[in-house]
């Protein structure tokens, strides 16, 4: 066995790596925003008294959480195709990732909602706040604040999971790596570089969420509670 690493031969493809990393971040961004919305809706749905709605939300959450993302991506990809709908790989990837992360977000948000003391809601009702005000100020924002660390970890995991989208030829970072390694025959170097890029991306995302947390939840900053 002779181990001769030749990183320059692979690193000269840096524009491709960069483009892949940017697309990975784009995928993660859209899926995070849409998944947060979908997950919050599903969490609210599970808490309603309407058995039909809460049942449907439960089925959604449990189905997604107990099947692999790879299978979900293929189902969305071929499902849309069998309906005669043609979308780009990027759109399909965002849709599949959104459906996936929505289920995990729903569970995290539900934990957040359950952590809101009933007394606070009763107090808000006593102060004659409207239902919408109660939902926003008393339930949603404090719940998000409570589960913010878990949420952000989930979104970083989503960014890493987006690598699976390489299998439906979305041109993100892992797909770029597959292409470069088959072109240069430098598999070890290529995947080491890509692994490092993913580590950097996850550190960047963590730092970004940490900063966002300081802006969104000034109370935490005042109390000096670590995020």
């Amino acid at each position, binding site marked *: *066995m*002779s*181990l001769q690493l030749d990183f320059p031969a692979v690193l000269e493809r840096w524009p491709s790596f960069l483009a892949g990393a940017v697309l990975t971040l784009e995928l993660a961004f859209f899926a995070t925003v849409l998944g947060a919305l979908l997950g919050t809706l599903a969490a609210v749905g599970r808490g309603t008294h309407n058995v039909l709605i809460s049942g449907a939300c439960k089925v959604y959450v*449990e*189905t997604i*959480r*107990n*099947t*692999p*993302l*790879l*299978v*979900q991506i*293929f*189902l969305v990809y*071929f*499902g849309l*195709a*069998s309906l005669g709908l043609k979308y780009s790989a990027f759109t399909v990837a965002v849709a599949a990732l959104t459906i996936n992360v929505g289920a995990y977000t729903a569970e995290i948000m539900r934990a957040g909602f359950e952590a809101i003391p009933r007394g606070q809601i009763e107090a808000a009702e006593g102060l004659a706040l409207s239902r919408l005000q109660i939902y926003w100020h008393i339930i949603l924002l404090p719940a998000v604040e409570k589960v913010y660390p878990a949420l952000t970890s989930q979104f970083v995991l989503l960014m*890493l*999971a*987006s*690598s*699976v989208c*390489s*299998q439906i030829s979305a041109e993100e970072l*892992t797909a770029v*790596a*597959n292409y470069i*390694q088959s072109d240069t*025959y*430098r*598999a*070890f170097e290529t*995947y*080491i570089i*890509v*692994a490092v890029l*993913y*580590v950097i991306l*996850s*550190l960047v995302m963590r730092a970004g969420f940490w900063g966002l947390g300081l802006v969104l939840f000034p109370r935490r900053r005042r109390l000096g509670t670590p995020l």
Partner: protein
Amino acid sequence: MGGHLNINHLMFLGQGALWTIGLSLIALIGGGIVGFVIALARISPLKSVRIASAVYVQLIQGTPLLVILFLGYFGLAAIGLKVSPLVAAGASLTLYVAAYLGEIWRGCIQSVPKPQWEAAEGLALSRTQRMVKVILPQAIRIATPPTVGFMVQIIKNTSLASVVGFVELMRSGQIVNNSLFEPFAIYAIIAVTYFAMCYPLSLFSQRLERRMGRGRSNLAPA
């Protein structure tokens, strides 16, 4: 192309499902052993060991499993180590699972109430005795529900081994699909099969968690 899903296809898928379970067990046992070492290393009295294990966890948790699998499969082949898909997938999953289980278990060990550590120290037990006789028996109880829950993640993640040519459930589905070309039906069957493997574990983990929650107050050394 052509033909319908018949008993042979289903047998093939069943075989794939068995390999999914087999690979999951390999990942659980291998990852469990390495993960236990990682968990102990993370709380080691030696700073260098703590740092090294923390770096390992950060690197693995910051990298997608798919990339680790490619490194294990194509990477090792490229430097002259020809490995079979089973070895590549088993080794990659072991390294991956170890990082996550290590962190889960570290949390469980550290969540054993502080007085228990102090009492064990007060009884003049050595560090090993403290761990084996006082802390670990309690940590195992705390660790059981999250570990069962994580087994669901392991089973789902073995589907990625299909990408390096390991014929588990997902890959056998792709192979069947190549001859029938009915992707939606076949992947739906695959999804249902994964669900049937994972959902009982999820329910079991939830039940254990609820029982733990009730029994937390009389948490006695086992």
